């Protein structure tokens, strides 16, 4: 069961990828779906078995690298933390596979698509079940590879290629720090196995490296790695561009796999982060800043997928600052609920795009809610969950995060609370802006498109309905275990809270207005969206015109791309050209070539005296010289 959950997707990927040409697209795609179903049939029971049956296990597979005391192996570690992830990833990924059968039905290279999709899932599962940092890095880079392949799936499009490379390279910047963190971990702890590291943390509290506590440095380096994968501010630029991939890919990247890896890493390394207060403060601030930044940008985007993409970025910020204040459980809980409603929103958006003949600009939609009732309903459910409206899944997890931030009683925690509250308001606002612009009002698409609007086929609707059920129920059902009274038993030590960390207790003891505040912010945001886009549709444009600079600032995503282009991309290319043309060609090659030219000139002179081939003379001379010197040497010394 444990092995099957991880390796069935790989099997599916191999069948579809290698045999796709022979077995045909239909067999290929269904083989991956069946393999994913089997994986989910293993993964979901594994989750219940490990988390509720209190039955953690580690399945060793093989040795990997062992040299001079550095030993890592391939193994599957199933504790509650990884079981939560395995259950969620296999289930959501299965639904996404199923949905893709309908969504990609007209694509000419389906075996390739489904192979990538399954590979992606496999890599994520390797990541979450790793029992050492190197296997985690394997999955970590593996999801990077799969996302690169999927974002660039339509490789004839220039923009898709650019986005794919950007995703990989920006992720690599994070991975650089991850790698350094791993190296430092090894020299600090003498091992890369989680069990060994976690057991030895208290012996290394006083270790210092480069003048700072080693644990702090490791935590910061790992967090920088997490920033890349989880698109935190500064390294987030790849995420919105990743929308170039087919929509199911976006759902997979944003919900189940890839971006959640960073949050998972921080939770996994909680025994270490707990003793790195400065690193945790950094995590909190970066998370809070991301939550706020992405929410502001999300309010003005016009591409349906980009709006949702920025909302992911923002929600990941929530997860990070939850981890930053020590409430890792709340972070993972939000990750868990978010997976359902974010997959739902993306697949719903895919359904809309499908209905609108591949149109993604929400300014060209509107007035279609009666034509696509199921999609409309599930988008409502997803948005309600995202906005944190009571009884929906997001309510439980987001509230818990904000309460924890408030209860941390630190300056950074309070900052996170305030920014998180603003972001909650903005989240509700942009979600309903999206709903209203897409589904309500007068149709803005041309007649041809409108005539074609249709509800998606059943194979796409079933996953949507299942995810909608998840978006409603997961919060209510699982809150008692993830963050409620039964948390200690549920997590069973797979996430470590230091003795000084009482956050999971304190978060239930905040003033009465704190739990209410996010809900109020949510409803206010919804109301504002209704006012601006339903009842007074001219206002947003006038606002944009009045505060033009501010609007452009948001629309251009705070100019991060332009900034990076100016300070990294173009200088790098300039350095490359200079290094090649001046460094290599003129300076390094200039010396020997110049010498050669001199020699040739001299040789020309010599040619006048002697006749024959210059090269052979030169070589005879050199060889003769060598022989002469060595003979002389031999002769005098013996």
């Amino acid at each position, binding site marked *: 069961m444990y092995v099957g959950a991880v390796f069935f997707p790989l099997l599916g990927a191999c069948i579809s990828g290698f045999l796709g*040409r022979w077995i045909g697209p239909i067999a290929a795609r269904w083989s991956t779906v069946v393999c994913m179903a089997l994986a989910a049939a293993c993964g979901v029971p594994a989750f219940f078995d490990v988390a509720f049956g209190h039955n953690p296990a580690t399945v060793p597979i*093989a*040795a*990997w*690298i*062992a*040299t*001079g*005391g*550095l030993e890592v192996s391939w193994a599957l570690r199933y504790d509650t933390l990884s079981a939560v992830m395995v259950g969620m990833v296999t289930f959501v990924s299965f639904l996404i596979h199923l949905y893709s059968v309908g969504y990609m039905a007209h694509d000419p290279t389906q075996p390739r698509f489904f192979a990538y999709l399954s590979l992606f899932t496999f890599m994520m599962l390797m990541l979450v079940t790793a029992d050492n940092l*190197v296997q985690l*890095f*394997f999955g*970590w*880079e*593996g999801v990077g*590879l799969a996302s*690169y392949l999927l974002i*660039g799936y339509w*490789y*004839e499009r*220039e923009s898709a*290629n650019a986005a*794919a*490379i950007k995703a*990989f*390279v920006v992720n*690599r*910047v994070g*991975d*650089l720090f991850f*790698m*350094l963190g*791993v*190296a*430092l971990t*090894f*020299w600090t702890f003498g091992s890369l196995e989680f069990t060994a590291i976690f057991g030895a943390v208290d012996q290394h509290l006083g270790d210092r*490296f480069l003048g700072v506590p080693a644990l702090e440095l490791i935590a910061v380096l790992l967090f920088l790695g997490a920033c890349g994968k989880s698109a935190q501010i500064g390294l987030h630029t790849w995420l919105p561009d990743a929308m170039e991939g087919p929509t199911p890919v976006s759902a997979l990247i944003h919900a189940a796999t890839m971006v959640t890896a960073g949050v998972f890493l921080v939770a996994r390394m909680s025994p270490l982060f707990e003793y790195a207060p400065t690193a945790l403060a950094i995590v909190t601030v970066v998370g809070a800043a991301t939550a706020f930044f992405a929410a502001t940008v999300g309010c003005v985007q016009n591409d349906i997928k980009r709006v949702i993409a920025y909302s992911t970025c923002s929600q990941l910020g929530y997860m990070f600052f939850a981890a930053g204040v020590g409430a890792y459980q709340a972070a993972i809980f939000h990750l868990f609920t978010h997976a359902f409603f974010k997959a739902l929103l993306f697949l719903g958006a895919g359904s809309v795009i499908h209905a609108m003949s591949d149109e993604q600009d929400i300014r060209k939609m509107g007035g279609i809610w009666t034509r696509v009732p199921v999609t409309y309903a599930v988008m409502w459910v997803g948005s309600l969950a995202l906005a944190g409206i009571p009884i929906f899944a997001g309510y439980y997890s987001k509230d818990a995060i904000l309460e924890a931030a408030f209860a941390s009683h630190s300056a950074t925690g309070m900052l996170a609370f305030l920014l998180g509250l603003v972001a909650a308001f903005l989240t509700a606002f942009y979600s309903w802006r999206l709903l209203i612009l897409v589904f309500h009002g007068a149709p803005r698409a041309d007649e041809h498109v409108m005539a074609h609007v249709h509800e998606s086929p059943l194979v796409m609707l079933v996953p949507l309905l299942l995810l909608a059920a998840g978006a409603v129920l997961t919060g209510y059902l699982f809150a008692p275990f993830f963050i409620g009274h039964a948390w200690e038993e549920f997590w069973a030590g797979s996430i470590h809270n230091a003795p000084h960390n009482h956050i999971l207790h304190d978060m239930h003891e905040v003033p009465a207005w704190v739990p209410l505040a996010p809900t109020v912010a949510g409803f206010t945001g919804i109301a504002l969206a209704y006012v601006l886009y339903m009842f007074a549709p001219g206002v947003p444009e006038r606002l944009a015109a009045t505060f033009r600079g501010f609007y452009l600032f948001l629309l251009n995503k705070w100019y991060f791309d332009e900034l990076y282009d100016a300070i990294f991309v173009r200088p*790098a*290319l300039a*350095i*490359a*050209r200079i*290094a*090649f*043309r001046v*460094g*290599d060609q003129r300076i*390094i*090659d200039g010396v*020997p070539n110049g010498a050669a030219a001199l020699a040739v000139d001299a040789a020309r002179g010599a040619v006048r005296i002697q006749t024959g081939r210059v*090269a052979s003379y030169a070589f005879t001379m*050199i060889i003769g010289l*060598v022989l002469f*010197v*060595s003979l002389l*040497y*031999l002769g005098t*010394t013996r």
Partner: protein
Amino acid sequence: MNAAGFPILSLVTFLPLAGALIIALVRGEERVIASNARWTALWSSLIAFGLSLILWFRFDRSSAELQFVERLDWLPDYGVAYAMGVDGLSVLFVLLCTALTPLCVLASWESIEHRVREYMAAFLVLESAMVGFFCATDLLLFFLFFEMVLIPMFLIIGIWGGPRRVYAAFKFFLYTLAGSLLMLLAIIFLWHNAGTTDIPTLIQTGVDPRYQIWLFLAFFAAFAVKVPMWPVHTWLPDAHVEAPTAGSVILAGVLLKLGGYGFVRLSLPLFPHAAAELAPLIFALSVIAIVYTSFVALAQEDMKKLIAYSSVAHMGIVTLGIFTFNHQGLSGAVFQMLAHGVVSSALFLCVGVLYDRVHSRDIARYGGVAKVMPAFAAVFMLFSMANVALPGTANFVGEFLVIVSAMRTNFWLAFGAALGMVLGAAYTLWLYRRVAFGRITREDLKGLLDMSPREHAVFAPLVLLVLWMGVYPQSFLSFFETSVAALVQQHEAAVGAAQRFAETVVR
């Protein structure tokens, strides 16, 4: 006399040479000669490979000693012997040579059309020289093979190369020759001092620390050019660009390793003090190689040049790893050499596949190849990913170990080495994008045929190897585990003794 019961190393070394002789004796029509030469070359290299597999199975991995030893007195008066033997550090390189040569013969099957006989003979001579180099345990023999490699390679570039082949061949020859002359002087000095050229004996005796720096530098000159280290690397891109595909494969796959292997085999154990003292210099050169040449690779418009520069960057990782003197670093460096031998060879073969069809190495000449050549695109993708050291492929293991060991020496050293991860991803993916992705704009590309069965046969073993080395590197690491441990121990003992000595002197 040894575990195989017969002089296997000499057999593997000289069997290709015998094949070359047979080819040279073939007479008849032009076409018959060509075909005979191809088949003879293929069979003799395959038999050599099959023989060398005995080494894989019979090698005792738990021992750091030289194995399969052969010894014949050659110039007994001068303490020079014909001595062959392999230990964990060299045995896999022998296998790398014997495995790559048949693939090279196959890769040249159709692309070499004139002077096939001479070409195949040159390749077999080259194989003999390379295998001999890795087996030699006598300094003079080592030097002879080291130089012997030069000649067939010089011919392969100079005769079957591209338009600027003469320039490239001479540049290659002169750079390497200049280095090896200094090495010869150092060898003569060593022989003069110890009265023998037997490498294990020399290591046992040790070298007076006073001379170590100069001797080290003399060897360094030879090996650094071969690696190649910055700033003596510029012969490599030129040589690669002009060499025929199989020439590039051997150049990247094996010849570059001569330098790295030389460091491990000779420089480290013979001159531990000098190595320790000059390590910072080598670190600096290695990091420059990694960062600087990665940038240079980014500016390339020629596929082969790009991969050549990427080789320089990857070999920077190797030299860095060797001179950290710790177990992970040395293991990582040796593994990285083997991995690079597989991956860069495969990348040059990929370029060869395209070049055979379109006759251009210009990146801009391509675009959208993935559409018409899906199998090729998949193979090319795999090796591109291996080139960026994706975990699960061969290169990762080496780079990972080296970065880990660099961290022990210095944080910024590790940072510099890890920068290669980002830059490597940038230039490799950009290359891939420009060649394989995008829309096909040129008419002639639309008709390209995907890989032929012969090309599949060339790539299949490399694909298997690169994944095997990535997923279960233990099969390879275990070969040199004890040898590396012994090397590290010996180095620490030597340097430690010198430190203690210095301390007592100061007191």
